[in-house]
């Protein structure tokens, strides 16, 4: 069983959603990322999404755009990012690590090279924003051959007719992007999230994680009541930026925000039962 499958099975067994947290790798500087990742785990994150910086993050809002530029400006390279992942795996043998980013940096040296390098670094899954199912051949087979989960995204525009195509070849979990938009801005209504999760659940056994616009413990708890996973990204990335601006080490700020989110996710369904 993969680390992602094990983790979602465990949180399901505990009667709660998994907390999935995103940070941009190398933001604000590559040397800061290991401590930030440790703080995510320490704060209670169940799954780590490590953002692979790109000059042109078309699907991201201002917070993550700036994080990408800070990271690249600080000299983050693909080699450095893989090294960060590799060292994380050594420190945290069982925490799933998912690399999230855009096709061009991932495909630069070829899909086979990338898949092998990810496997070597102990990366469990890939989320590639701009490779829809229609272009699966460019990356999917190489990842599957290395036993790496290719996490697919579904959105409010993914209708019932299209959903099977999105699910075909998906593994790890299904990432439901709850708003038609970019990261970090508006949040979907609870009703629309519940409807979408029910619709997707009827079509797959994969765990469903919901993200985009989830910022506060209250919002995370609301999503955690219906989904198998809650993804929080921009709010944590903003905390990294704010700490950096104050000249403080970002890890402390990250730990603190993740603790709040984690507590909310863990208690969400108990509150509901009570």
């Amino acid at each position, binding site marked *: 069983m993969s680390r992602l499958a094990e983790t979602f099975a465990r949180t399901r067994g505990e009667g709660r959603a998994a907390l999935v947290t995103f940070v941009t790798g190398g933001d604000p500087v590559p040397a800061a990322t290991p401590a930030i990742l440790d703080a995510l785990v320490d704060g209670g994150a169940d799954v780590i999404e490590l953002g692979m910086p790109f000059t042109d*993050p078309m699907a991201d809002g201002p917070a993550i755009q700036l994080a990408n530029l800070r990271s690249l400006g600080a000299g983050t390279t693909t080699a450095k990012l893989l090294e960060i992942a590799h060292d994380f795996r050594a420190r945290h043998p069982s925490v799933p690590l998912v690399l999230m980013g855009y096709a*061009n*940096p991932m495909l630069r040296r070829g899909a086979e090279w990338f898949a092998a390098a990810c496997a070597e670094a102990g990366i469990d899954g890939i989320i590639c924003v701009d490779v829809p*199912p229609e272009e699966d051949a*460019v990356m999917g087979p190489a990842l599957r051959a290395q036993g790496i989960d290719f996490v697919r995204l579904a959105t409010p525009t993914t209708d019932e007719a299209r959903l099977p195509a999105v699910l075909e070849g998906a593994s790890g979990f299904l990432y439901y*992007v709850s708003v038609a938009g970019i990261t970090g801005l508006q949040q979907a209504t609870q009703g629309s999230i519940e409807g979408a999760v029910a619709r997707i659940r009827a079509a797959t056994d994969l765990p469903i994680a919901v993200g985009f616009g989830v910022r506060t413990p209250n919002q995370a708890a609301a999503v955690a009541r219906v989904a198998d996973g809650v993804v929080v990204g921009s709010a944590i990335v903003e905390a990294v930026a704010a700490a950096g601006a104050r000249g403080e080490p970002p890890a402390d700020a990250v730990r603190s925000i993740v603790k709040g989110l984690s507590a909310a996710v863990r208690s969400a369904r108990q509150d509901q039962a009570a």
Partner: protein
Amino acid sequence: MNVPNSFRALPDDTGHFGEFGGRYVAETLMPLILSLEREYRAAQADRAFAEELDYLLNHYVGRPSPLYYAERLTEALRASAEPGMGAKVYLKRDELNHTGAHKINNCIGQILLARRMGKTRIIAETGAGQHGVATATVAARFGLPCTIFMGAKDVERQQPNVFRMKLLGAEIRSVSSGAQTLKDAMNEALRDWVANVHDTFYIIGTAAGPHPYPELVRDFQSVIGREAKEQILAAEGRLPDLLVAAIGGGSNAIGLFHPFLDDPDVRMLGVEAAGHGLDKQHAASLAGGSPGVLHGNRTYLLQDEDGQIAEAHSISAGLDYPGIGPEHSWLKEIGRVDYTAVTDTDALDAFQLLCRTEGIIPALEPSHALAAVARVAKEMPAEQIIVANLCGRGDKDIFTVAHALGVAI
């Protein structure tokens, strides 16, 4: 090399030109891209669509544009050629179109598609502002609200076009993310589109982006090549020996080339912007780039070893883009079209040459094509024929040119 039966049969039904093209977009956009393709197929089969397009091209854009024998330019080039050398140069005068460039051909086609799809809001990216002006123009003509995304640096450099767009009723969104130029404007337009898929149509300005854009932009621009073919047959009784066109994203070039691709005796030359030189900062994706994925398609890109996109440079803001339409990438790989690159300096020389020999002020984009013409015409026998695409007029560029020549206006 495996030579296909036709060079005009692509993209395939998944939107690929060989290994190039495709639909590399976020899932949110996929359903919309698929429905655009369905709508385009329906429009292609609809005679009323073609009739309305033709009507607007004739009466609103001012087509057909003339094919003009540039006699004094030809003579000027022959003056420095060996005896008996120096091809006859014809100019396809798309700079005479309404709004002063070829961009409008495509905008008219796309806004008709937008209306067919029931979309009520138009967005577009622009670099120099030519595509923005053309988009704002058709949006005004069809009464649709329009938002143009433009890099903050370009907004500063291209004030006259910014004002033109405002006069036409468009909202200008100055993009201060990233490098603040064309590619960032396109990123921001894509971000807006993802958030407004329900009512918004994105009029992409060049033959790039996710399928079906490269195909439909090419088809709308192919009016250039179809007219040129008819006109050169009428003027000379035969096809030209060489077609020349400038390439940023490549829409004017593919528009001229595509109708001739299966005429084996017609050679073609696409001209990229070599900026300060191919060993310095430039915008020549084919000459100095490598295949990658950006803005919805796989194509040649300027990028570093980690796949980070590089900053392009050209004196011509319309060529200042680190990618190129995927069909050009394919035509290069398969060898059907030759590609070369021209520096800022050579383009400026050609700009002035055309002003003085023909009384035509060309845009800086086709000045790159003219510089290549100046280079190759001398090597061709005098009875041979070149058709170059004069895809835009130079009014918008006079400030840039004055600055480059050290003249204060």
